[in-house]
């Protein structure tokens, strides 16, 4: 973590420990009191860089040399390193920050008056827990499975839907996942986020490419081309799907980033599949895109209907 100033104290009714203790516990180094804006401008100008942190007095030239030995992000397959070892169920819903009557009334979840729970298999390429929480909020029975789970095994448990998670690294080398997704398309409703979106793009025959310095932060405007509305979204990705590489016969572009016009979402014209590049679960970040979780459950509902296009 690199910050301009690091708070030495905590001041919040929900606080249980200081940031310093928390980061220590997770062995995350913190660099502070540097000109972070200068660093951002540098990265903006030269693009994302490999870096190295040292405290032992190693000369800078040596560190630069070592950093250059680090593998480049392009071509790096990281999902298999961060995925879970075996499947597990997830039951926790969203965190309530304070008792307030309005969360219920706003009807954030579709749970009301419904007993049927959508069985969702979530492929873990490095999944964010808030995605799981929101799936639970949206009345899903959530099972997280390792990245390498095969399509046959996945379909074998008769899920109502498949979720493809976010995750680190370059999507291209994750051939096994692309292969699996290709087999799942059309067999079951699929919803992908971030890396999951890129993998869908590749599975549909498209290409991905590396962005100069990626999209990071919680203020990216994304236009939903179906509704013409703009969502403020949380993003964290270094690769993007090239929309021109997608077969226009099968795929419809649904979302576009207004800052640089890169692709932010798509859906299959026939099969029950849609995916977004950004993070609708946004934690941290704005809640504008929570509706996608409802669209996912709606898609599963429709797929279950007799007479749907289900094969």
């Amino acid at each position, binding site marked *: 973590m690199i910050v301009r100033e690091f708070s030495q104290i905590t001041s919040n009714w929900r606080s249980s420990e200081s940031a310093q203790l928390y980061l220590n516990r997770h062995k995350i180094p913190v660099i502070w009191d540097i000109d972070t804006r200068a660093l951002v401008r540098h990265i903006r100008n030269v693009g994302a860089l490999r870096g190295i942190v040292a405290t032992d007095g190693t000369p800078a030239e040596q560190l630069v040399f070592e950093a250059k030995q680090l593998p480049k992000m392009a071509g790096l397959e990281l999902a298999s390193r961060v995925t879970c070892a075996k499947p597990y169920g997830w039951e926790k819903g969203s965190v309530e920050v304070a008792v307030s009557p*309005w969360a219920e009334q706003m009807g954030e979840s579709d749970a009301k008056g419904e007993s049927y729970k959508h069985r969702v298999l979530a492929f873990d390429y490095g999944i964010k827990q808030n995605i799981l929480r929101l799936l639970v909020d949206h009345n899903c029975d959530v099972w997280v499975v390792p990245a390498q789970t095969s399509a046959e095994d996945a379909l074998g448990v008769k899920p109502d839907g498949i979720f493809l998670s976010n995750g680190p690294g370059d999507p291209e080398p994750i051939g096994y996942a692309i292969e699996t997704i290709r087999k799942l398309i059309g067999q079951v409703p699929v919803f992908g986020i971030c890396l999951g979106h890129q993998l869908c793009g590749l599975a549909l025959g498209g290409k991905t490419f590396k962005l100069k310095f990626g999209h990071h932060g919680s203020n*990216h405007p994304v236009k939903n081309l179906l509704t013409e509305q*703009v969502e403020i979204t949380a993003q964290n990705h270094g690769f993007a799907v090239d929309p021109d590489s997608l077969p226009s016969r099968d795929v419809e572009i649904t979302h576009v980033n207004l800052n640089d016009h890169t692709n932010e979402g798509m859906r299959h014209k026939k099969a029950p599949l849609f995916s977004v590049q950004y993070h609708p679960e946004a*934690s941290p970040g704005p809640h504008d895109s929570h509706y996608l979780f409802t669209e996912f459950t709606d898609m599963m509902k429709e797929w279950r209907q007799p007479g749907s296009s289900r094969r």
Partner: protein
Amino acid sequence: MPKRKDIKKILIIGSGPIIIGQACEFDYSGAQACKALRAEGYEVVLVNSNPATIMTDPELARRTYIEPLTREYLEEIIAKEKPQALLPTVGGQTALNLAVELSESGILEKYKVEMIGASLRAIKVAEDRLWFKDACRKIGLEVPASALVNNAKDAMRLCDQLGFPLVIRPSFTLGGTGGSIAYNKEEFAESISTALDLSPVHEALVEESVLGWKEYELEVMRDFRDNFVVICSIENFDPMGVHTGDSITVAPAQTLTDKEYQRMRDAAAAIIREVGVETGGSNVQFAINPENGRMVIIEMNPRVSRSSALASKATGFPIAKIAARLAVGMSLDEIPNDITEKTPACFEPTIDYVVVKIPKWQFEKFPGADSTLGTQMKSVGEVMAIGRTFKEALQKGIRSLEPSTPWRAPAETPDSLLREKLATPRPDRIYWLLTAMERGLHGEEICELTKIDPWFIHQIEELTAMNRRAASVTVETASKDLLREVKRHGASDEQLAQIWRTTPASVRLQRARYGVSPVFKRVDTCAAEFESFTPYLYSSYEDEDESDAQQRPKIMILGSGPNRIGQGIEFDYCCCHASYALREDGFETIMVNCNPETVSTDYDTSDRLYFEPLTLEDVLAIVEREKPQGVIVQFGGQTPLNLALELKRNGVPIIGTAPESIDLAEDRRRFGRLLEELKIPQPRNATALIPEEAARVAAEIGLPVLVRPSYVLGGRAMVIAYDVNTVQDYVAQAALMGPARPVLIDQFLEEATEVDVDALADGAEVVIGGIMEHIEEAGVHSGDSSCVLPPVSLTPAVLDTIREYTRRLALALKVVGLMNVQYAIQRDTVYVLEVNPRASRTVPYVSKATGVPLAKVAARLMAGKKLASMHLPIVKNNGVAEIAVREFYSVKSPVFPFNKFRGVDTILGPEMRSTGEVMGISTSYGQAFAKAQLAAGQRLPRKGTVFLSVNDRDKKHLAALGNELSTLGFHLLATRGTAAALEAAGIQAEAVFKVNEGRPNIVDLVKTGKIDLIINTPLGRESFYDEKSIRRAAIRYNIPCITTLAAANAAARGIHALHEQGIEVAALQDLHKSQAAASGAPASGD
């Protein structure tokens, strides 16, 4: 959605005069809206009564009306201009209320004018506290428990239910006027009666107290497509209980986690949708219980506001400009972000710095006013500071306030007093916080006493710890690292000089030796994610400099800092004009200022904007980076002038009148000698240090005398003494206040007429810009006096003398640029009272009245142009060039904040107390005066009852007034003495009781609505309290109250004109055109 094609002409209503709670932020937003709509191809019709605004510049709108902001005048303008739409959301509460009135009275419907930007329903829901609460509850949001009352009995019943403390808020008032907090039944009874009186609908909200809770604001925008963005989050350093306009505020919010922030964001989106604000900017205020996170909604404004101006400056996102575009049907994603150019306005700015806003108060102007901060706003201005950390921004903010002397706690403060100072919010609380830390009071106790969030308290603890470390070394022994670290905490050279008992210059020298100097960072809306094309800069002690200074010919303009009484929007207007003119002439212009409310701190105004404190240190740092050809100090009022000599000594190229001349004009002795040389009379004067000496010189000069301290801004602490005792007391008091500074004693010219002159000079030629005759006689501060241009009662000989003296003075002082002279004319003798070789408060007014933009011309003179080359519409009088006098009268009238300061006397004197001004224009003097009075909130009656009570000096001159009022059909009431004087002159008047003479007395009559106009000139000490209660009642019941005979005579002429003329309106563009035609020269100096 593309912009609407069915609308061509749009009416924008401005916010009127500067008052507490509604300042120049609305000139900023209105001017932005004007520019945006014009750029989109719409014709803008603009109405505002305030001539000191940029928005009323004739170039800005197609049609500009400086007229009273009342329904009648608006109807007249609408009938004449036939706009298709009205944008009511950029002129503050004034515009919003007026739009509601126009809509509800059927005028908008009659002329088929559509309200854009906010619907009537949305305004009503947001403004009506009960409707608003219902709307919040409907969407499941919490609001403080409350009820509306319209009588005292129901209110008392309610307080038993809700328990104390209770918040009382009158409905439909500005800046929380009349709001208060009651801790017991007695206080509650008084508060509720005040609140009901002040509410135009006689209604108030009584509410559960959320005192001490955390307070937040979100500035949000929405468009027709339902796109919603948060522009900025603002956290109040001072917790709930202090009006947000009186709170130190911080952007972005510092003590929320993302989860809590997003909950607030969701709530804001839900509210703006429920209230029905379809397009534009709104702000929503929240309170959060620090114990458990319970969030309640406090209020929302369905318009741009003071906070949205702050948010615009804090983020670089121009809310008003975008709001105007949204109002005509554009969507956020169609509008580009000016700063990045390549990305759209549909995003949420990210901030990689901390912004701190600190209010500026002036309680010293209002003796007797309660300085406790509460739910009613009392500050007159604010500063904003940008730093990379809260600590840095806070310290920059504190020095931006320009305290005349650094604040120091009295050495012997008992801890109990210290605790009281912390617990009760007053303007100086921030200093007491620092004092408490230095004394070693525990942070937890400070949090407990102040309810300020522990994070902020910890930040201040870190500041004091840093200062303590600095104090352990000296300026010579301080290491480079320590020096850099303490500068990174935001400390000024001056602060360090105090710590190290040395001079700021030696601190600066040490910094130069070590190479510890600030770099400049950009405000770019996106935390450097994209390239920025707008150089909007702030300083910080960091590694990388982004200023990218250019090599073009450039001129730097120093602004005027926070608004205060005597130094406000007029000076900002001049700074903006200087920038506009020099930009047109091909210079790169650089603006330096720290006031977020202004047009000068709009990144559009100048080529480059430095949002920095106006101190020697900060200005020098910018000069070093930019190396401008010239620096202009004469447009920003006293603030930059105070720096002029020091800047020059440091090699800064000051252009225009030399700082030495400015200094000479302020040095009484040297200036007196100059006047003697020039053979120009001035009132006899002397200085005194001790009471005895004062008594002697006062007697020599001859009573009455004007007594004042030797340093003056806006006439601080001046008195007129009619006897020697008052003089002695004053000097004795002044000696108690501080180190021996001489007191100035001037002959006071009784019954003299005061005249203001603004003139232009290029070192060789002089052009008179305007001669203004004051309506109140000498003795009332020029800023508090109404005045008229052209003069109405001066003889040609006197005018010629004034012209000649002005020319002599300008040449003797080698003025290049503007000069203002104040004269007093007593029995045809012209005396010089004061000369200021700089822009004055009256420059915008004169410019609007004559059509010649004086500040622009002056800026060009400073940059080297000559008057002869400017083609000004000049006539020669007595051999002196003067801007052609026009065929209409322009009256300027002041506006006072007395309704904000309960218990303060409203009598006018040498101490300036007005916060703003208005202008009335008409072909007759009387009508112009009546319009100005109306615009200032004094509605002169056409008929009814007038109450007169005048002092003995005035009794001699009462006959004319009495006759005029009788002829106009008024019934006259008077105190015994005044009635006798009237009867002696053969005028019938009914005698009434004074307050101490029996019942019903005059105050009873005022309260029961029997009086339509009060004319009350002060009698002196003996009946002081009696008069004070009359004037207070007048304010409370909103009855026009005139306190000088001269103004009463003008009012009579005004009423006469109302009878004769009816309502007339005229656009500036037409007035200036007719004038230019008459003088045969172009209307503008451009």
